[in-house]
Structure formats: C-alpha cells, structure tokens
C-alpha cells in the first residue's frame, strides 16, 4: 500500500508509542526518544515552520550530522507538503550556494555554529534565505542575525500554535499524497553544477520496503547512523527504511566515537562503503601484529581455517565434520571475539556499496561469519536495484534484481533499469532528465555490465570508458579499463594502475607500486633500495608485479566477455601518480587521457615492444616548487592465456 513518511510516523506513534524510535548518545548515556515523543516533536516543528511561513511545495535544507532533531525536521517539512533537501555537512560554503538558489530555499536547519557560520557567509549570495534554525546553541549565544533562531524557539512557538489548533498537524499530514515530492538530493556532478534528484514519497518508500522485505528487516533491528544524511545511502538506511520498518536508529556521540558507539550499540543491520571495512580490517591487523606469539599463532591458524571453510559455510553448503569442528573452535577462540571487537557481534545483514570491494577484504568478513553483501543502485534509483541473497554473495557481482526491478541491456552494454523507485526528474533540468530517463520509463545508468549465468548483475565499467580491441588476435573484443585496473589494484602491492587498449591490438598497463607495502616486502627480503624510483625498478619488484598481472590474466581468461582484456605488457612507473600533478582527480581517480599524453613515450614504447625507455617528468612538490624526475624504465611482457570457453 502506498503511503507517506509522516503517515508512517503517525502509524508507529499510534501502534507502539512507548518503544524507542531513535537513540542519541549524549553526556555518556544513550538517550532514547520514543515514537510518541518523536511524533509530538515533529508536530510542534511542523506547526512552528507553518507559522514561520513554510508553504507546500517549498524547499528546506537540512545540514548536519545524524541527529534526532535533524530527522524530525525532515519529517516536519514533509508533513507540510514541503520538500527537505539534506546537504553534505562537510561541503564548503560556496558549494551550498547553487543548491540553495536552484531550489529557491528560504528555510534552513543547521546543526551547530559551524553550519550556521557557513550559511551566514553565503547569505549575501542567497538573499531569499530568511530563516535559519540551529540545533546546538553552543557559541551562538551572541549572534544577532535577522532570521536566526534556535530549534528550541521554533518548537516552543509550534507548541503554542498546536495548543490553539490541535488538529492542524493531522490534517496537514492527511493532505500529503504518496505521489507528492518527498525529498530532493543533490548529486555531486563531476562536471558542471550538481543536479537535484527529485524523489516522491512513494519512490523512496517503495524501495525502502523492497529492501526490507528482501532481508526480512523488522522493528527489532538496530542501525547506527554515521555517514552523511545527504548521501542517499544513509538517508535510505536511517530514514526511509527506519520509517518503513520501525527499527531503532542510533546516533553516535561524535564522529570520533563511532567505533566505540558501534561496539556499545551492536547494530544488526549495517552499511558502509568498502573503505570503512578496509579501515576496520587494518586496525585489527595492526593490533594483531602487536599481540603475543601465542595469540598471533592462534589468529593466523584459525584465519586460515576460516578462509578455507567460512565461505562454503556462509553459502549454506555442507562441510566436512573435521572442518565443522575446527570452525566451531575457531569461532569460540577467534572469530567471535573478533566480531565483538569490530562491533559486529549482532550484525545480521551488512552491505557494502559505492565502489568495488577487493575479493580478499570481502572474503575476510564473510569467512568470520559476518553476512557482508553487495548491492547496486544510485541516487536516481533510490538505492535498491540489485541485492545479493544471503547465500549467494560473491565479490565480483552485485546481486540479483530485487522486487519490482526490470533490467535490460542496451546494445552498447549499458544497464537500463525500470523500477518503482526511479526518480521523478532532475530539478529544473528537463534536458538532463531526458538524457537519462527515456519516455518509455527506462533509466540509463551509464554503467556497463551484464547478467551472469546465475542471474547476478556484474558491473564492468562506466559505459563511456568501455572500448574495443582493434586488430591482433583479440580483434573486436570488449575492453573495460577500470575493470582491469580494479582487479590489479586489489593486490596490496599495487597502488594505482592505468590501462590502455581501446582501439589498439592489445592491452598494456602502467603500474604504481604501493610504496609502504612493497617497501615492507623488500625489507623482509633484505632487498636494499635507495628510494621510490629505485625500488620500482628492481627486477624482484618486476617479478612481483608480473605475478599479479598474470594472475589477473588467468582470471580474465575464464571470463567469456572480457578474456580479450588480458594484459600483454606492463611497466612500473618511476613516480607516484599524484593529484598535484594533475594525474589523479581530487577523489583519487586516474585521469587516463591526461596520463596518456604526459607519458606518451612510455605508452608508445609499450606498444612498440621496446624493453627499456628513458623518461623525464616534471613534478610538483607539496610546497609548490617544481622539479624533474628521470629514469630509464624497464618494460616487460606478461603471459596471457587462451580464453576458456565456458561449457554452454
């Protein structure tokens, strides 16, 4: 049944008024807010905002970390038929100007002094921004700006209004329709201005429900909300699904206490991008290196068992009796305490999304009994397009289409999606909308991929980056640079990779070693080196990288679509690719075209089959000075494998 956000709030408040809706740790104690109290708070906020002049259809921005009153404000705005826009709390002041003016925002909720200062700074650029409400009054006592008031004052005013008009809130909530616009999210465009992605109450709640049904989420689940609420992922997990399921959302005390809070709360439903899982694993490994020999030995032995037995066990397949006993023992001695120390003792379902996750990292979590899975989606699709079922989680796919989703592949390999969760439009940008949302209801994801034999979706690359091999033995084969690069980057010794092959007869890559990992590796082998450039050119290092490349080639050879993307030649770069030199973007993505120009001699040498090549490169040091690095680089061949044709 279609419904709206504020309607769901009223349902929870009526059905289970005393149960906790949210918890926030403050002054060292988890303070719970019940559904009934939340509903009262929201009704007062609504009345206050109505009195202050917020109208149906208008927008209000909310900026801040996950706090109960931030989510209450979103609900209050929606109850009036207005539209909340969460903005990233770490965005620079100037970045907020476009969204505020684009959506003609007059009302703002700001978490604290930092956010208020930001909004005041851009006020002369956004003259229509009249009302700013702050949650935490600290440091704001002496501010004397027109239109600046505390949320407390807003609630007090709303309470007075509500006493005089007791039916106002419910009447307003009943007027809101599921098809009305429910929220807007600005996506950080890589080029040009960000785009406002418009969602209706129904598109968000429909997907929230689909995801919840898929994993059988209930009101008894617990979530820790610690990623920015402006990110659709967090907003779905701690807002849309929160209201759809009625579980408890816990707000950490501060960004610095998340790991402590995680342990205290013990969430049952968890969501994080791969880098968070990587950070957690690294901290465990470092602590393990400092442990005593007995502990370390035990850890490594049982992690070996876990790696061998864990994945099979998680897939629900039978394992031998010995393995079963060993795994159970490991569970008591190692896996259980480890899960506890990660704050994941109670995790029933954990998701990672946003970027590709390394198979080792993925397997590590699954092997110690954490049900980590992947999903596929974006802001435009209200997250849930594909999800991995509990027993079929694999590192290289993103799962099966979930309820209501239809997937179709365009001729160029682009994934097209039809789903009840698709966005309505890009705000005030019909041209951009028409580009990705066709009249027959298909959304063009701009990702290339395919459905594998088991019906799982596999993402290859961005469509615009996918190329074709031209000439040679693999003529016409598909070439997905990022797919190849990622596969290589999953090796801890490799930091960055640039792959070439579009319109050429074979694939060649340039590799950046990870200085820490390879340096450490060299030290353990008593291999002396004078610095980055020297280390990068050691024959031993070339052999190390060659092994990685050939392993990737072996992997690719069994892939029917991408067997032609195997790497024929490679070299190890003499300097680290750096954003300061324009080789990476600020978010650390390789700029393939720029690098191809800058290192043209190297790329040519790779394709011309030379075995050494001299290069001199300008570099910019951190203090702004420039210098040059020169080296004679070796170029090496890698073994490729004949494509293995999967039996049809």
């Amino acid at each position: 049944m279609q419904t709206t956000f504020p309607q769901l709030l009223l349902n929870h408040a009526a059905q289970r008024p005393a149960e906790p809706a949210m918890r926030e740790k403050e002054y060292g104690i988890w303070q719970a807010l019940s559904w009934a109290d939340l509903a009262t708070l929201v009704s007062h906020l609504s009345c206050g905002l109505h009195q202050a002049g917020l109208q149906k259809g208008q927008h209000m921005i909310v900026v801040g970390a996950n706090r109960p009153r931030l989510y209450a404000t979103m609900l209050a705005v929606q109850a009036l038929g207005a539209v909340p826009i969460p903005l990233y709390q770490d965005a620079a002041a100037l970045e907020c100007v476009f969204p505020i003016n684009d959506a003609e925002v007059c009302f703002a909720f700001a978490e604290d002094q930092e956010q208020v200062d930001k909004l005041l700074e851009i006020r002369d650029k956004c003259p229509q921004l009249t009302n700013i409400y702050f949650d935490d009054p600290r440091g704001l006592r002496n501010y004397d700006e027109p239109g600046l008031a505390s949320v407390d004052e807003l609630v007090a005013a709303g309470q007075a209004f509500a006493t005089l008009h007791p039916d106002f809130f419910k009447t307003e909530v009943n007027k809101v329709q599921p098809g009305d616009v429910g929220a807007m999210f600005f996506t950080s465009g890589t080029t040009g201005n960000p785009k406002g992605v418009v969602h209706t109450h129904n598109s968000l709640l429909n997907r929230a429900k689909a995801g919840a049904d898929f994993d059988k989420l209930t009101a008894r689940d617990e979530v820790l909300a610690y990623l920015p609420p402006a990110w659709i992922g967090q907003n779905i997990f701690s807002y849309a699904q929160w209201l759809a399921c009625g579980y408890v959302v816990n707000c950490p005390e501060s960004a610095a206490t998340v790991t402590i809070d995680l342990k205290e709360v013990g969430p049952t439903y968890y969501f994080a991008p791969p880098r968070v899982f990587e950070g957690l694993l690294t901290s465990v490994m470092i602590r393990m290196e400092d442990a005593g020999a007995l502990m370390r030995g035990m850890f490594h032995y049982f992690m070996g068992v876990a790696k061998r037995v864990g994945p099979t066990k998680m897939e629900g397949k039978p394992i031998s009796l010995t393995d079963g006993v060993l795994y159970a023992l490991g569970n008591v001695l190692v896996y259980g305490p480890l899960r506890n120390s990660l704050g994941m003792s109670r995790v029933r379902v954990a998701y990672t999304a946003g970027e590709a996750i390394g198979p080792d990292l993925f397997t590590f979590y699954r092997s110690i009994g954490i049900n980590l899975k992947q999903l596929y989606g974006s802001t435009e699709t209200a997250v849930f397009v594909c999800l991995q079922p509990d027993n079929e989680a694999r590192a290289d796919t993103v799962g099966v289409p979930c309820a209501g989703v239809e997937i179709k592949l365009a001729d160029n390999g682009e994934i097209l999606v039809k789903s009840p969760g698709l966005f309505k439009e890009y705000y005030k940008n019909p041209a951009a909308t028409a580009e990705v949302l066709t009249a027959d209801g298909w959304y063009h994801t701009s990702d290339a991929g395919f459905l594998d034999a088991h019906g799982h979706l596999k993402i290859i690359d961005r469509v615009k980056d996918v190329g074709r091999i031209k000439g040679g033995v693999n003529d016409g084969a598909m070439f997905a640079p990022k797919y190849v690069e990622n596969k290589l980057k999953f090796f801890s010794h490799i930091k960055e990779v640039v792959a070439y092959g579009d319109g050429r007869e074979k694939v060649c890559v340039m590799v950046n070693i990870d200085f820490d990992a390879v340096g450490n590796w060299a030290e353990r082998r008593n291999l002396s080196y004078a610095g980055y450039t020297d280390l990068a050119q050691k024959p031993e290092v070339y052999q190390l990288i060659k092994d990685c490349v050939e392993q990737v080639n072996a992997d690719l050879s069994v892939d029917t679509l991408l067997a032609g993307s195997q790497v024929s030649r490679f070299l190890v770069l003499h300097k680290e690719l750096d954003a300061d030199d324009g080789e990476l973007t600020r978010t650390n993505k390789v700029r393939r075209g720029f690098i191809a120009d800058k290192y043209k001699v190297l790329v040519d040498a790779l394709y011309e089959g030379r075995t050494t090549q001299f290069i001199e490169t300008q570099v910019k040091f951190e203090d702004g000075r420039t210098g040059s690095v020169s080296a004679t680089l070796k170029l090496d061949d890698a073994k490729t494998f004949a494509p293995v044709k999967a039996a049809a």
Partner: protein
Amino acid sequence: MSKKIGDVILDVKNISLSFGGVKALTDISFNVREHEVRAIIGPNGAGKSSMLNCINGVYKPQQGSITFRGKTFGHMDSHQVAVMGIGRTFQNLALFKGMSVIDNIMTGRNLKIKSNLLMQALRIGPAQREEEFHREKVEHIIDFLEIQAFRKTPVGQLPYGLQKRVDLGRALAMEPQVLLLDEPMAGMNVEEKQDMCRFVLDVNQEFGTTVVLIEHDMGVVMDISDRVVVLDYGKKIGDGTPDEVRNNEEVISAYLGTSH
C-alpha cells in the same frame, strides 16, 4: 557579537615579589574586569607565571595587595583561592597520567563533594547520588571540550594537545568565576591552537567566566583578549587594548630590542 564586560572583579595593587636578591615582580598593578579575557604577556623571565602564582596563592608577595570581589588580601591562600572560585591550568601539565580522563576531571570537583571518603568508598548514604550529580557535570565538560572519544583513556596515552584540553577540563570542573591559564597553547600545532582558542572563547562567552591568560603567541593574544598587560623584567611596561599595546613604544623595544 557583543558581550557585557562588568566591573573590576580582581584588583592587583603594587605587588612586589623577590626571591632573596632577585626581584621577580616590582610594583605591579593591574585589574581584571568581570567576563573579560585579560592577557599577560612579556619576554621569558618577565614574571608572568610569578604573577599568576601570586594571584592563586602559591607565592606570597612581600608588598602589595590583591582584591577579589571586594575582599582585600595581603597574600592569597591557595585553598581559599580555589574555594572563592579561581581555577587555573599549568604551563607544564600536572595531570594524573595513570588515571582516565573522567577521573582527572572528576578531581576538579573535589571541593564540591560533600560526602566523606568512607561514604564514597562504601557508596552509602547520599554518596552515590552525589557522584551521579558530579559525573553529570563532568560529562557536560567532556561534551564541551569534545573529548568524548577519550573518556576512559588514561591521560598519559593522549597526545599533548589533548592533555592540555583535559587540564582545562579539570579547571572548568570547579566552575570557576576566574580562570587563570598559564600558556594554554604552548607546544601546540596550528590546528590545536585554533581549537584551544575556540574553547577559551567559548568558556568566556558560554559560562561568562573571566579569563586571565599568559601566552607567547602574539597572534593568539591579539585575537582573543580584551585587554593586555605587558611585563618586562618584573615591571609593567604596558597595559591596554591589543591595539594600544601593539603601538606602545616600550613594548616594541622590549620585544624587538632597540638601538642605543
């Protein structure tokens, strides 16, 4: 932004202090108004810390008087000073390194705890309730100083900048009316200094606490103080707003030297 600066709360008159033949302070007079941030600056050995030590009763000056809230003393008694509401932090931290952040700050509540040692140890009578009350006060300070992540960490394991924050927290725990800060930003990096400045200003504005601070970083002093006293070789050579002090010939020559 404006705050109300009140009447004189602390008045130092003609203080002279010597150790044997060494004259640490000579005939120093200045006053501190309620709710202001008052800085004491001067080159090394100018007598800044000695001045603070006279105010909170560690040193007993040979001459002069100190008036606090209308009461005049020839010299202060350190226990009495604390009871009257003057708190301080130290240039070289004096925290209990093996104790947690909470326990360290809790020691700042010592004067306010009424139940005796036995009652506290056995948690009988009102002791438990009292501890909860004080713990709540401490939690507010932890929240204020944004050190929630280190509640239970032994202070000795924290980086220096955070230890300074805990030191400030302990001084705040006694809810002082006047806070004496001895080089709160010494040895800090730029970011830590900025944080500390914000905390000092927030203490001043949120709680109305009067702040007397010694500081070497001129940028910091000029930014956050309302008035500045300048000492050199135990003598007062300047007193006024940051701008007045900055343009004072004597101050310039004390800091930069003069050609003779």
